């Protein structure tokens, strides 16, 4: 695959070229860290941070979107307007999350037209990490600071230069469109990229993740959930910041017979998530709800998709207002599994 090098001084030019005929979404500095944001001014791009506060899943699975509008009893519009987008500066963990989300939104051959349309129209330019973030553990859940899954282009930060590797045909076309400001990568540069990755991998603290699914099943009634349920406040921070959490709600909004049906993020941590119309709630306690989130990711998803739905970005750890640490929970579950 095509590999080119860019002088970092020309980063803004690159960003401008990539965004020439597309919407450009990239990390920018915000009040509290960095966030993915639609930009027109390339000088705002901020590639320094490892993890943005929220994941870029918003680009393919927005916090809310209109499924369709209606008037009276008639559905009036169902086609979402979705622009061609380049998502620049995504970390490999977040890019990998797209690949996992793809599986849900095409599961059993039932395609989600809204997600898929956004996904199709989004080119992902990822950037490998040289320094892990404060709660990163990607390599413990099957990822890597230079993972290629889910991205079209993967970049490596070589100090004064960026090495850009095309991973897909679309990525290659994208790089070709910027050929005026890049040069073919030299073997030395490729080696330097590899070295940076090896260094980054070394700096990641490994987390023991429970892999014995049968043993994990056995943890369902364990005391650990009670303890964690007491601590968990039942907010949606972890799920909303998580690049792979994808549960949603569908609600109607209407005024004088005209309205829209929207879908919006939702989370199993909310007590009303599973409340039946009859008043019955299968998950009445926060223990059960916290357990659901962890087991959905680390037991049910592996059973259904062969992989845990966690990419190790650590956002749930850094953002949790209750100070819950998923890494510690996984370590404990893994050691419980070993003990049985």
């Amino acid at each position, binding site marked *: 695959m095509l590999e080119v090098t860019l002088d970092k001084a020309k980063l803004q030019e690159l960003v401008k070229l990539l965004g020439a005929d597309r919407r450009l979404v990239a990390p920018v500095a915000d009040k509290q860290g960095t966030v993915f944001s639609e930009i027109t001014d390339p000088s705002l791009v901020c590639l320094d941070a490892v993890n943005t506060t929220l994941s870029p899943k918003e680009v393919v699975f927005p916090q809310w979107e209109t499924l369709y509008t209606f008037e009276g009893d008639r559905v009036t519009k169902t086609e979402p307007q979705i622009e061609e987008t380049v998502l620049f500066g995504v970390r490999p963990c977040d890019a990998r999350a797209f690949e996992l989300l793809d599986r849900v939104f095409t599961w059993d051959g039932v395609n989600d037209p809204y997600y898929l349309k956004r996904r199709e129209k989004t080119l992902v330019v990822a950037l490998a990490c040289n320094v892990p973030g404060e709660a990163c553990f990607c390599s413990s859940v099957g990822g890597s600071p230079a993972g290629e899954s889910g991205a079209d282009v993967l970049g490596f930060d070589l100090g004064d230069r960026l090495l850009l590797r095309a991973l897909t045909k679309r990525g290659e076309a994208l790089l070709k469109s910027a050929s005026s400001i890049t040069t073919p990568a030299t073997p030395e540069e490729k080696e330097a990229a590899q070295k940076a990755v090896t260094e980054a991998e070394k700096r990641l603290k490994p987390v023991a993740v429970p892999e014995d699914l049968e043993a994990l099943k056995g943890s369902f009634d364990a005391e650990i959930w009670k303890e964690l349920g007491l601590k968990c406040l039942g907010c949606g921070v972890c799920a909303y910041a998580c690049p792979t959490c994808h549960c949603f709600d569908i609600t109607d909004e209407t005024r004088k017979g*005209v309205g829209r049906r929207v879908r919006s993020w939702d989370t199993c941590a909310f007590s009303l998530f599973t409340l039946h119309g009859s008043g019955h709630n299968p998950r009445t306690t926060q223990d059960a709800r916290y357990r659901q989130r962890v087991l959905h990711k680390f037991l049910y998803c592996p059973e259904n998709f062969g992989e845990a739905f966690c990419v190790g970005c650590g956002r749930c750890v850094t953002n949790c207002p209750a100070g819950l640490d998923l890494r510690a929970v996984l370590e404990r579950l893994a050691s419980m599994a070993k003990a049985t």
Partner: protein
Amino acid sequence: MTKKKDGKRNDNGWEPRIVAFLCNWCSYAGADLAGVSRIQYPPNVSVIRVPCSGRINPLFVLKALQSGADGVLVSGCHPGDCHYISGNLYARRKFALLKSLLEYVGIEPERVQFSWVSAAEGVRFAEILEKVIDAVREVGPASKMVKELEEVT
């Protein structure tokens, strides 16, 4: 939450839409009296009758603003006259905070107003309502809290 695109609301023919929450015992009766006494008051008000001004949840007012009301008038019995002894006195504290908070966040103070109107004060009701409508007309169509839904084609 941009300014209304609807031309009708911005041209000279625009008339404010007011939601009035009136307590059953005093202000609603006052409005009624204004009606039966043939005291003219502007027609651009939707009256919502509530059992007592103490029943007014600040969310009622917020919801009215979200739903496109240009102004909201809340009215109850004068202090001391509450049918339930003190509903309006508890309410007065809530109203003071709501009024102050809305102004603080930058919403025009003309939009949300509170008054006391007794069952015998038909004239007073008409005057207050007129004053509210004039004030809202002065500040123009609401935009800040209004929830916009997609245009349906």
